[in-house]
Protein backbone atom coordinates (compact mmCIF):
# COMPACT_ATOMS: atom_id res chain seq x y z
CA UNK A 1 0.00 0.00 0.00
CA UNK A 2 2.66 2.46 1.03
CA UNK A 3 4.59 1.38 -2.09
CA UNK A 4 1.80 2.70 -4.30
CA UNK A 5 1.54 5.85 -2.20
CA UNK A 6 5.30 6.43 -2.65
CA UNK A 7 4.99 5.93 -6.39
CA UNK A 8 2.05 8.32 -6.50
CA UNK A 9 3.88 10.97 -4.49
CA UNK A 10 6.99 10.72 -6.68
CA UNK A 11 5.09 10.86 -9.97
CA UNK A 12 2.91 13.71 -8.74
CA UNK A 13 6.05 15.60 -7.76
CA UNK A 14 7.44 15.25 -11.31
CA UNK A 15 4.22 16.48 -12.88
CA UNK A 16 4.11 19.40 -10.44
CA UNK A 17 7.71 20.30 -11.31
CA UNK A 18 6.85 20.18 -15.00
CA UNK A 19 3.77 22.30 -14.46
CA UNK A 20 5.92 24.90 -12.68
CA UNK A 21 9.07 24.84 -14.74
CA UNK A 22 7.69 23.73 -18.12
CA UNK A 23 11.17 22.48 -18.90
CA UNK A 24 10.44 19.38 -20.89
CA UNK A 25 6.97 19.07 -22.34
CA UNK A 26 6.86 22.19 -24.55
CA UNK A 27 10.28 21.30 -25.92
CA UNK A 28 9.09 17.79 -26.76
CA UNK A 29 5.94 19.07 -28.50
CA UNK A 30 7.87 21.62 -30.52
CA UNK A 31 10.47 19.02 -31.42
CA UNK A 32 7.96 16.48 -32.66
CA UNK A 33 6.15 19.10 -34.76
CA UNK A 34 9.42 20.34 -36.27
CA UNK A 35 10.39 16.78 -37.05
CA UNK A 36 7.11 16.17 -38.86
CA UNK A 37 7.65 19.30 -40.93
CA UNK A 38 11.17 18.16 -41.79
CA UNK A 39 9.73 14.82 -42.88
CA UNK A 40 7.55 16.55 -45.44
CA UNK A 41 10.70 17.68 -47.21
CA UNK A 42 12.41 14.34 -46.72
CA UNK A 43 9.71 12.38 -48.52
CA UNK A 44 9.88 12.78 -52.29
CA UNK A 45 6.75 12.16 -54.35
CA UNK A 46 3.16 11.60 -53.35
CA UNK A 47 2.85 7.87 -52.92
CA UNK A 48 4.93 7.69 -49.75
CA UNK A 49 2.21 6.98 -47.20
CA UNK A 50 4.02 3.89 -45.96
CA UNK A 51 7.29 5.77 -45.64
CA UNK A 52 5.53 8.52 -43.70
CA UNK A 53 4.14 5.94 -41.26
CA UNK A 54 7.66 4.66 -40.77
CA UNK A 55 9.01 8.14 -40.19
CA UNK A 56 6.33 8.77 -37.58
CA UNK A 57 8.17 6.17 -35.51
CA UNK A 58 11.46 7.95 -35.96
CA UNK A 59 9.78 11.10 -34.64
CA UNK A 60 8.33 9.24 -31.65
CA UNK A 61 11.58 7.59 -30.63
CA UNK A 62 13.69 10.73 -30.95
CA UNK A 63 11.15 12.89 -29.16
CA UNK A 64 11.09 10.36 -26.36
CA UNK A 65 14.89 10.55 -26.19
CA UNK A 66 14.67 14.31 -25.82
CA UNK A 67 12.32 13.92 -22.86
CA UNK A 68 14.29 11.06 -21.32
CA UNK A 69 17.52 13.02 -21.31
CA UNK A 70 15.75 15.46 -18.94
CA UNK A 71 14.05 12.77 -16.86
CA UNK A 72 16.41 12.96 -13.89
CA UNK A 73 17.39 16.61 -14.38
CA UNK A 74 15.72 17.85 -11.19
CA UNK A 75 17.27 15.08 -9.12
CA UNK A 76 20.70 15.51 -10.65
CA UNK A 77 20.98 19.28 -10.36
CA UNK A 78 20.31 19.24 -6.63
CA UNK A 79 21.66 15.78 -5.82
CA UNK A 80 18.21 14.89 -4.47
CA UNK A 81 18.63 11.32 -5.65
CA UNK A 82 20.76 10.70 -2.54
CA UNK A 83 17.83 11.54 -0.29
CA UNK A 84 15.46 9.37 -2.31
CA UNK A 85 17.91 6.48 -2.21
CA UNK A 86 18.33 6.75 1.57
CA UNK A 87 14.57 6.72 2.16
CA UNK A 88 13.29 3.50 3.74
CA UNK A 89 10.91 2.91 0.83
CA UNK A 90 11.77 0.41 -1.89
CA UNK A 91 14.12 1.96 -4.48
CA UNK A 92 12.17 0.52 -7.37
CA UNK A 93 9.37 2.95 -6.42
CA UNK A 94 11.64 5.74 -7.69
CA UNK A 95 11.77 3.98 -11.07
CA UNK A 96 8.02 3.36 -11.20
CA UNK A 97 7.24 6.97 -10.31
CA UNK A 98 9.65 8.34 -12.88
CA UNK A 99 8.51 5.92 -15.59
CA UNK A 100 4.89 6.92 -14.97
CA UNK A 101 5.69 10.60 -15.35
CA UNK A 102 7.68 9.88 -18.53
CA UNK A 103 4.72 7.89 -19.81
CA UNK A 104 2.44 10.83 -19.09
CA UNK A 105 4.73 13.18 -21.05
CA UNK A 106 4.82 10.79 -23.99
CA UNK A 107 1.05 10.44 -24.02
CA UNK A 108 0.59 14.22 -23.91
CA UNK A 109 3.10 14.79 -26.70
CA UNK A 110 1.44 12.18 -28.88
CA UNK A 111 -1.92 13.76 -28.23
CA UNK A 112 -0.52 16.60 -30.32
CA UNK A 113 1.72 14.61 -32.64
CA UNK A 114 -0.79 12.04 -33.90
CA UNK A 115 -3.47 14.55 -34.98
CA UNK A 116 -0.72 16.66 -36.55
CA UNK A 117 0.49 13.59 -38.42
CA UNK A 118 -3.06 12.89 -39.59
CA UNK A 119 -3.41 16.43 -40.89
CA UNK A 120 0.01 16.61 -42.56
CA UNK A 121 0.36 13.09 -43.95
CA UNK A 122 -2.25 10.38 -43.64
CA UNK A 123 -5.04 9.19 -41.39
CA UNK A 124 -4.14 7.57 -38.10
CA UNK A 125 -6.20 4.49 -37.34
CA UNK A 126 -6.77 2.50 -34.17
CA UNK A 127 -3.87 0.12 -34.77
CA UNK A 128 -1.40 2.99 -34.96
CA UNK A 129 -2.77 4.40 -31.70
CA UNK A 130 -2.57 0.95 -30.12
CA UNK A 131 0.98 0.50 -31.32
CA UNK A 132 1.99 3.92 -30.01
CA UNK A 133 0.40 3.24 -26.63
CA UNK A 134 2.18 -0.10 -26.23
CA UNK A 135 5.47 1.34 -27.49
CA UNK A 136 5.22 4.19 -24.96
CA UNK A 137 5.16 1.73 -22.10
CA UNK A 138 8.34 0.06 -23.33
CA UNK A 139 10.06 3.36 -24.05
CA UNK A 140 9.20 4.72 -20.60
CA UNK A 141 10.29 1.52 -18.85
CA UNK A 142 13.63 1.02 -20.56
CA UNK A 143 14.31 4.71 -21.09
CA UNK A 144 13.87 5.63 -17.44
CA UNK A 145 16.32 2.96 -16.34
CA UNK A 146 18.88 4.00 -18.95
CA UNK A 147 18.39 7.67 -18.07
CA UNK A 148 19.24 6.70 -14.50
CA UNK A 149 22.41 5.07 -15.79
CA UNK A 150 23.36 8.01 -17.97
CA UNK A 151 22.98 10.40 -15.03
CA UNK A 152 25.63 8.46 -13.13
CA UNK A 153 28.12 8.77 -15.98
CA UNK A 154 30.32 11.65 -17.09
CA UNK A 155 28.94 11.67 -20.64
CA UNK A 156 25.31 12.01 -19.47
CA UNK A 157 23.07 13.28 -22.30
CA UNK A 158 25.54 12.06 -24.89
CA UNK A 159 25.43 8.52 -23.60
CA UNK A 160 21.67 8.06 -23.39
CA UNK A 161 20.94 7.77 -27.15
CA UNK A 162 23.79 5.30 -27.55
CA UNK A 163 22.44 3.13 -24.75
CA UNK A 164 18.83 3.48 -25.80
CA UNK A 165 18.68 3.14 -29.59
CA UNK A 166 19.84 -0.49 -29.90
CA UNK A 167 17.20 -1.40 -27.31
CA UNK A 168 14.60 0.68 -29.17
CA UNK A 169 15.01 -1.21 -32.45
CA UNK A 170 12.54 -3.95 -31.45
CA UNK A 171 10.06 -1.25 -30.40
CA UNK A 172 10.38 0.37 -33.81
CA UNK A 173 9.91 -2.98 -35.53
CA UNK A 174 6.78 -3.65 -33.50
CA UNK A 175 5.43 -0.15 -33.99
CA UNK A 176 6.05 0.08 -37.72
CA UNK A 177 4.69 -3.44 -38.19
CA UNK A 178 1.54 -2.57 -36.28
CA UNK A 179 1.11 0.56 -38.43
CA UNK A 180 1.66 -0.90 -41.89
CA UNK A 181 1.40 -4.70 -41.89
CA UNK A 182 -1.76 -6.51 -42.88
CA UNK A 183 -1.91 -8.39 -39.57
CA UNK A 184 -1.17 -5.84 -36.83
CA UNK A 185 -2.17 -8.13 -33.96
CA UNK A 186 1.08 -10.08 -34.22
CA UNK A 187 3.07 -6.87 -33.84
CA UNK A 188 0.96 -5.55 -31.01
CA UNK A 189 1.49 -8.84 -29.19
CA UNK A 190 5.22 -8.50 -29.77
CA UNK A 191 5.18 -4.98 -28.29
CA UNK A 192 3.27 -6.25 -25.27
CA UNK A 193 5.86 -9.00 -24.82
CA UNK A 194 8.68 -6.46 -25.05
CA UNK A 195 6.95 -4.23 -22.48
CA UNK A 196 6.47 -7.08 -20.03
CA UNK A 197 10.02 -8.43 -20.34
CA UNK A 198 11.85 -5.15 -20.10
CA UNK A 199 9.55 -3.60 -17.52
CA UNK A 200 10.21 -6.51 -15.18
CA UNK A 201 13.94 -6.39 -15.85
CA UNK A 202 14.12 -2.63 -15.34
CA UNK A 203 12.01 -2.76 -12.23
CA UNK A 204 14.21 -5.44 -10.71
CA UNK A 205 17.53 -3.83 -11.61
CA UNK A 206 16.87 -0.15 -10.89
CA UNK A 207 18.11 -0.46 -7.32
CA UNK A 208 21.57 -1.39 -8.61
CA UNK A 209 21.64 1.63 -10.89
CA UNK A 210 21.24 4.12 -8.05
CA UNK A 211 23.35 2.39 -5.40
CA UNK A 212 26.90 1.14 -5.11
Amino acid at each position, binding site marked *: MSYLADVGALARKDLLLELRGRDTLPAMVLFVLSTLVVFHFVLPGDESELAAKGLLWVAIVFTALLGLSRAFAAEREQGVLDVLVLAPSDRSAIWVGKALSVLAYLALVELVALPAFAVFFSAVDARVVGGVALADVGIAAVGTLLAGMAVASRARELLLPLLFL*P*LAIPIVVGGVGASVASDPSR*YLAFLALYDALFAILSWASFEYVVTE
Partner: protein
Amino acid sequence: MWLRNNRLPAFAALALGLMAAAIALIFFYAPVDEDGLNQKIFYFHVAIALTAYGCFVWGAWKALLVLWKRDEGADLESYVAIHQGVIFGALTLVTGSIWARYRWGHWWEWSEDQLVLFLVLFLFYSAYFMLRFSVEAGPRRANLSAVYALFGVVLIPVSVLAIRLSERFIHPVAFDKGGPNMAASQFLTFCVSTFAMVALAAALYHVELAGKRIDLRLRELRERLA
Protein backbone atom coordinates in the same frame (compact mmCIF):
# COMPACT_ATOMS: atom_id res chain seq x y z
CA MET B 1 43.65 -29.65 -9.88
CA TRP B 2 46.32 -28.95 -12.49
CA LEU B 3 43.58 -28.00 -14.89
CA ARG B 4 42.02 -25.57 -12.42
CA ASN B 5 45.25 -23.67 -11.99
CA ASN B 6 46.39 -23.81 -15.59
CA ARG B 7 43.32 -22.99 -17.58
CA LEU B 8 45.16 -20.72 -19.95
CA PRO B 9 47.73 -23.22 -21.29
CA ALA B 10 45.07 -25.94 -21.33
CA PHE B 11 42.67 -23.88 -23.42
CA ALA B 12 45.49 -22.61 -25.62
CA ALA B 13 46.64 -26.16 -26.40
CA LEU B 14 43.06 -27.29 -26.96
CA ALA B 15 42.40 -24.34 -29.27
CA LEU B 16 45.55 -25.03 -31.26
CA GLY B 17 44.75 -28.72 -31.72
CA LEU B 18 41.10 -28.20 -32.56
CA MET B 19 41.85 -25.34 -34.91
CA ALA B 20 44.33 -27.44 -36.85
CA ALA B 21 41.79 -30.26 -36.99
CA ALA B 22 39.04 -27.87 -38.09
CA ILE B 23 41.12 -26.39 -40.88
CA ALA B 24 42.13 -29.83 -42.06
CA LEU B 25 38.51 -31.01 -42.04
CA ILE B 26 37.21 -27.89 -43.74
CA PHE B 27 39.64 -27.97 -46.63
CA PHE B 28 40.35 -31.66 -47.10
CA TYR B 29 37.39 -33.56 -45.73
CA ALA B 30 34.16 -31.59 -46.07
CA PRO B 31 32.70 -31.88 -49.58
CA VAL B 32 32.48 -28.88 -51.88
CA ASP B 33 28.75 -28.25 -52.35
CA GLU B 34 26.79 -26.38 -55.01
CA ASP B 35 27.92 -22.98 -53.67
CA GLY B 36 31.48 -23.87 -54.54
CA LEU B 37 34.62 -23.26 -52.54
CA ASN B 38 33.20 -20.01 -51.13
CA GLN B 39 30.85 -22.01 -49.01
CA LYS B 40 33.81 -23.00 -46.80
CA ILE B 41 33.59 -19.67 -45.02
CA PHE B 42 30.30 -20.88 -43.61
CA TYR B 43 32.20 -23.15 -41.20
CA PHE B 44 34.07 -20.15 -39.83
CA HIS B 45 31.20 -17.70 -39.94
CA VAL B 46 28.65 -19.74 -38.04
CA ALA B 47 31.21 -21.07 -35.55
CA ILE B 48 32.38 -17.53 -34.81
CA ALA B 49 28.79 -16.31 -34.40
CA LEU B 50 27.94 -19.10 -31.96
CA THR B 51 31.11 -18.33 -30.01
CA ALA B 52 30.13 -14.66 -29.80
CA TYR B 53 26.73 -15.64 -28.36
CA GLY B 54 28.55 -17.83 -25.87
CA CYS B 55 30.75 -14.91 -24.80
CA PHE B 56 27.75 -12.61 -24.33
CA VAL B 57 25.90 -15.20 -22.29
CA TRP B 58 28.99 -15.90 -20.18
CA GLY B 59 29.44 -12.15 -19.64
CA ALA B 60 25.81 -11.85 -18.54
CA TRP B 61 26.20 -14.79 -16.17
CA LYS B 62 29.20 -13.08 -14.56
CA ALA B 63 27.18 -9.85 -14.47
CA LEU B 64 24.46 -11.68 -12.59
CA LEU B 65 27.07 -12.81 -10.08
CA VAL B 66 28.14 -9.18 -9.61
CA LEU B 67 24.61 -8.16 -8.67
CA TRP B 68 23.48 -11.30 -6.93
CA LYS B 69 26.53 -12.49 -5.00
CA ARG B 70 28.27 -9.10 -4.86
CA ASP B 71 31.26 -10.87 -6.40
CA GLU B 72 33.75 -8.07 -7.13
CA GLY B 73 36.04 -10.15 -9.32
CA ALA B 74 33.13 -11.07 -11.58
CA ASP B 75 32.98 -7.50 -12.89
CA LEU B 76 36.32 -7.86 -14.67
CA GLU B 77 35.37 -11.33 -15.94
CA SER B 78 32.10 -10.02 -17.30
CA TYR B 79 33.86 -7.16 -19.03
CA VAL B 80 36.51 -9.41 -20.58
CA ALA B 81 33.89 -11.91 -21.75
CA ILE B 82 31.90 -9.16 -23.44
CA HIS B 83 35.08 -7.75 -24.95
CA GLN B 84 35.78 -11.14 -26.51
CA GLY B 85 32.16 -11.31 -27.59
CA VAL B 86 32.47 -8.01 -29.41
CA ILE B 87 35.68 -9.15 -31.14
CA PHE B 88 34.00 -12.35 -32.30
CA GLY B 89 30.88 -10.34 -33.17
CA ALA B 90 32.92 -8.04 -35.40
CA LEU B 91 34.48 -11.11 -37.03
CA THR B 92 30.97 -12.46 -37.61
CA LEU B 93 30.09 -9.26 -39.42
CA VAL B 94 33.25 -9.44 -41.53
CA THR B 95 32.92 -13.11 -42.46
CA GLY B 96 29.18 -12.70 -43.04
CA SER B 97 29.85 -9.76 -45.27
CA ILE B 98 32.34 -11.77 -47.34
CA TRP B 99 29.85 -14.61 -47.55
CA ALA B 100 27.17 -12.17 -48.75
CA ARG B 101 29.58 -10.76 -51.33
CA TYR B 102 30.13 -14.16 -52.92
CA ARG B 103 26.62 -15.45 -52.53
CA TRP B 104 24.61 -12.38 -53.58
CA GLY B 105 27.24 -10.13 -55.10
CA HIS B 106 27.05 -7.28 -52.58
CA TRP B 107 28.62 -6.72 -49.18
CA TRP B 108 25.50 -6.37 -47.14
CA GLU B 109 22.30 -8.39 -47.11
CA TRP B 110 19.44 -7.16 -44.92
CA SER B 111 17.52 -10.39 -45.40
CA GLU B 112 20.27 -12.33 -43.64
CA ASP B 113 18.93 -12.40 -40.06
CA GLN B 114 22.17 -13.27 -38.40
CA LEU B 115 24.03 -10.33 -39.98
CA VAL B 116 21.36 -7.83 -38.99
CA LEU B 117 21.24 -9.22 -35.48
CA PHE B 118 24.99 -8.93 -35.10
CA LEU B 119 24.87 -5.36 -36.31
CA VAL B 120 22.34 -4.55 -33.58
CA LEU B 121 24.37 -6.41 -30.96
CA PHE B 122 27.55 -4.74 -32.12
CA LEU B 123 25.94 -1.33 -31.56
CA PHE B 124 24.51 -2.42 -28.23
CA TYR B 125 27.78 -3.73 -26.86
CA SER B 126 29.74 -0.77 -28.21
CA ALA B 127 27.47 1.37 -26.04
CA TYR B 128 28.41 -0.95 -23.17
CA PHE B 129 32.02 0.15 -23.58
CA MET B 130 31.00 3.80 -23.82
CA LEU B 131 29.12 3.37 -20.55
CA ARG B 132 32.09 1.74 -18.86
CA PHE B 133 34.52 4.37 -20.03
CA SER B 134 32.41 7.25 -18.82
CA VAL B 135 31.92 6.02 -15.26
CA GLU B 136 34.69 5.99 -12.66
CA ALA B 137 35.98 2.56 -11.71
CA GLY B 138 34.28 1.23 -8.62
CA PRO B 139 31.21 -0.62 -7.42
CA ARG B 140 28.82 1.77 -9.18
CA ARG B 141 30.45 1.06 -12.53
CA ALA B 142 30.30 -2.66 -11.82
CA ASN B 143 26.57 -2.36 -11.13
CA LEU B 144 25.78 -0.28 -14.20
CA SER B 145 27.80 -2.54 -16.50
CA ALA B 146 26.19 -5.63 -15.03
CA VAL B 147 22.66 -4.31 -15.48
CA TYR B 148 23.41 -3.36 -19.08
CA ALA B 149 25.00 -6.75 -19.79
CA LEU B 150 21.85 -8.44 -18.49
CA PHE B 151 19.75 -6.28 -20.79
CA GLY B 152 21.95 -7.62 -23.58
CA VAL B 153 21.03 -11.27 -23.13
CA VAL B 154 17.36 -10.37 -23.02
CA LEU B 155 17.80 -8.22 -26.11
CA ILE B 156 19.29 -11.12 -28.14
CA PRO B 157 16.13 -13.29 -28.33
CA VAL B 158 13.88 -10.21 -28.52
CA SER B 159 15.90 -8.91 -31.47
CA VAL B 160 15.84 -12.30 -33.19
CA LEU B 161 12.07 -12.19 -32.95
CA ALA B 162 11.93 -8.56 -34.05
CA ILE B 163 14.13 -9.16 -37.09
CA ARG B 164 12.04 -12.17 -38.11
CA LEU B 165 8.91 -10.07 -37.75
CA SER B 166 10.35 -7.14 -39.65
CA GLU B 167 11.01 -9.27 -42.71
CA ARG B 168 7.31 -9.75 -43.15
CA PHE B 169 6.76 -6.12 -43.96
CA ILE B 170 10.16 -5.27 -45.42
CA HIS B 171 10.28 -8.25 -47.83
CA PRO B 172 6.66 -9.33 -48.31
CA VAL B 173 7.82 -12.52 -50.09
CA ALA B 174 7.75 -15.42 -47.68
CA PHE B 175 11.18 -16.69 -46.80
CA ASP B 176 11.63 -20.39 -46.60
CA LYS B 177 15.08 -21.17 -45.38
CA GLY B 178 14.44 -24.66 -44.09
CA GLY B 179 16.45 -26.34 -41.36
CA PRO B 180 20.14 -27.11 -41.46
CA ASN B 181 20.38 -29.51 -44.32
CA MET B 182 23.84 -30.89 -43.82
CA ALA B 183 25.53 -34.11 -44.71
CA ALA B 184 27.14 -35.98 -41.83
CA SER B 185 30.63 -34.99 -42.97
CA GLN B 186 29.61 -31.34 -43.09
CA PHE B 187 28.02 -31.55 -39.67
CA LEU B 188 31.14 -33.10 -38.16
CA THR B 189 33.31 -30.38 -39.67
CA PHE B 190 30.92 -27.74 -38.41
CA CYS B 191 30.99 -29.14 -34.88
CA VAL B 192 34.78 -29.35 -34.76
CA SER B 193 35.20 -25.82 -36.02
CA THR B 194 32.67 -24.55 -33.46
CA PHE B 195 34.52 -26.25 -30.63
CA ALA B 196 37.78 -24.84 -31.98
CA MET B 197 36.38 -21.30 -31.91
CA VAL B 198 34.99 -21.74 -28.40
CA ALA B 199 38.35 -23.02 -27.20
CA LEU B 200 40.07 -20.10 -28.90
CA ALA B 201 37.69 -17.65 -27.22
CA ALA B 202 38.27 -19.31 -23.86
CA ALA B 203 42.04 -19.08 -24.32
CA LEU B 204 41.84 -15.41 -25.34
CA TYR B 205 39.50 -14.75 -22.42
CA HIS B 206 42.05 -16.16 -20.00
CA VAL B 207 44.92 -14.28 -21.65
CA GLU B 208 43.11 -10.96 -21.35
CA LEU B 209 41.93 -11.74 -17.84
CA ALA B 210 45.45 -12.63 -16.73
CA GLY B 211 46.82 -9.45 -18.27
CA LYS B 212 44.20 -7.25 -16.62
CA ARG B 213 44.70 -8.94 -13.26
CA ILE B 214 48.45 -8.50 -13.41
CA ASP B 215 47.89 -4.87 -14.28
CA LEU B 216 45.64 -4.36 -11.27
CA ARG B 217 48.02 -6.18 -8.95
CA LEU B 218 50.93 -4.10 -10.20
CA ARG B 219 49.03 -0.90 -9.52
CA GLU B 220 48.19 -2.06 -6.02
CA LEU B 221 51.82 -2.89 -5.29
CA ARG B 222 52.98 0.45 -6.66
CA GLU B 223 50.49 2.23 -4.48
CA ARG B 224 51.73 0.36 -1.44
CA LEU B 225 55.29 1.40 -2.21
CA ALA B 226 54.30 5.04 -2.72
